[in-house]
């Protein structure tokens, strides 16, 4: 209140000042620029840096250390590479790795192939009702893994599941999804494929729509047929996006946990035990943190090597 009477004074001075912004303006932006160049960006990234340090950097370093130890809490002691030695001689680790690799090799190409097919359809102007299809195929990727897993554990039920019923309409006998080692793996692959195909298709669609139309016109003029145009024009143009999806899907599948956890519990006969599930069992069922951390690092190493190879093989050719 006491400030109120003083305010009109600067206000009357302001119109004059506005005309000559130059003078006060010159010093103030300078001061502000100083603030900009130095402190402001640091203040802006401070929360991210703090969170990163606590919840990313520290855990990454700490788990490397834990992987070199045995025992928990006060009983933890350094045992060097013992956990890694144990891992190399652990048949269950190899089983889990083999399962993960099998699922990876079948699932990623299957899913990305289907996604590309769907994207080509969605990109074609000759298709009716495109927005509806696009929406529908994207919807599964919104669903959480638990909801999807629960849903499919019933859909894949041998005696009364929806899938076996649909198959029976085509005269196909009941399949023991989830009950036999082979079909359980197939079931897991089906569920992941159902879950993420649409997501990848929408990413591909964006890529397809980014290819300049003139290139296709030119190719047509040169007499290239549809197949030729796809192989020589579409695929090379899509390469960066293909690479992105291959790397992301590989990382995702290598970390596979939720689907088998909910669908099969890793069974039957460990046929769907994945590396991350085995890690979870060791860490949070048996509380063997040292060994679980070694598993995590082994997995990280595999991810890094595979990612590197994929980038080398598929990346820009000079």
């Amino acid at each position, binding site marked *: 209140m006491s400030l109120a009477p003083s305010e009109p004074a600067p206000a009357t001075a302001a119109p004059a000042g506005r005309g000559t912004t130059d003078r006060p303006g010159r010093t103030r932006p300078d001061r502000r620029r100083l603030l900009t160049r130095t402190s402001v960006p640091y203040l802006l990234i401070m929360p*991210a840096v703090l969170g990163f340090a606590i919840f990313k950097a520290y855990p990454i370093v*700490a*788990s490397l250390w834990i992987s070199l130890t045995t025992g928990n809490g006060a009983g933890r002691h350094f045992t060097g590479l013992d956990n890694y030695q144990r891992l190399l001689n652990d048949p269950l680790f190899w089983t889990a790795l083999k399962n993960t690799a099998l699922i990876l090799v079948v699932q990623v190409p299957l899913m990305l192939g289907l996604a590309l097919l769907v994207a080509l359809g969605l990109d074609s102007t000759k298709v009716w009702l495109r927005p509806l*299809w696009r929406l529908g195929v994207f919807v599964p990727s919104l669903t959480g893994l638990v*909801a999807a897993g*629960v849903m499919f554990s019933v859909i894949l039920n041998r005696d009364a599941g929806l899938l076996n019923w649909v198959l029976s309409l085509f005269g196909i006998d009941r399949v023991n999804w989830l009950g036999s080692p082979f079909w359980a793996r197939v079931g897991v692959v089906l569920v992941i494929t159902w879950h993420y195909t649409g997501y990848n298709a929408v990413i591909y669609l964006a890529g397809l729509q980014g290819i300049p139309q003139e290139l296709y016109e030119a190719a047509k003029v040169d007499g290239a047929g549809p197949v030729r145009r796809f192989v020589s024009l579409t695929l090379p143009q899509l390469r960066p996006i293909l690479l992105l999806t291959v790397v992301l899907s590989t*990382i995702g599948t290598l970390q596979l946990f939720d689907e088998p956890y909910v669908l099969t519990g890793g069974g039957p006969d460990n046929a769907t035990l994945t590396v991350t599930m085995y890690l979870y069992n060791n860490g949070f069922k048996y509380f063997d943190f040292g060994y679980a951390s070694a598993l*995590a690092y082994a997995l990280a190493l595999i991810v890094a090597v595979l990612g590197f190879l994929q980038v080398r093989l598929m990346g820009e050719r000079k």
Partner: protein
Amino acid sequence: MKRRSVLFTLLLAGAFGLCVGPFYWLAMAATQKNSDVFSWPPKLLPGGHLMENLQGLQDSIGLTRVLFNTVLVAGVQTAGAVVVSVLAGYAFAKFEFRGRNLFFVLLLSTLVLPDTVMLIPIFEMMMKLGLIDSYQSVILPGLVTPFGIFLMRQALRSMPDELLDAARVDGAGELRVLWRIVIPVNRPVIAALALFVFLGGWNQFVWPLIALRSPDMYTLPVATATLQGLATTNYAQVLLAAAIAAIPVMALFLVLQRQFISGLLAGATKE
């Protein structure tokens, strides 16, 4: 010409059916009596036992409490992660500072590392802080999302510098520029990011499964998973829980779909 369009349309309609069909079945199964869930042929029409199954879920997992937990965790996580991402994304996009590139690369490299690498140290940290079985334990690790920071940086980079400079010349402080220009101009991407983070928080499973101990604190995915696989499992209830987890986010997506998809694509297609 005409034939190809029919073929492609049929192909897409088939894909649509495969993707959406299971949800239809889920919605129907959630309204059946438990004994009718495994009937042959499957029930494909509404069953009239929805209220009974809801009551059952309320008794078995405390549905309202679990929903409250899930919304709280996902909501706070979303608010926090959006603030952190917008601030950091703005710094990365529009400021020069020492360590910018190094920190950015470090941040992105964690996208490639399996999350599982971080589980055990974070678990031990939460134990030491006495935060196991608390909301904080679930919320805190989700506040820094490298993807969100990356997305915001990409989006804010395409904002013209002149716009910001004009505001600065007019005497706006940095906070004011952020609040009055950067955020309003980029509201669609921010909405997409918020939806994305919310989805992640709503659906997250492994970490809450580890961090939460008492049924009172469970989020919906954790509570759903504990219901399953028991000898006494009531599948109509489990499926209803799955439907409750799946259907609201779909509705949210329907409302915001244009922003969401274009936001995701901004992250995916700009290098």
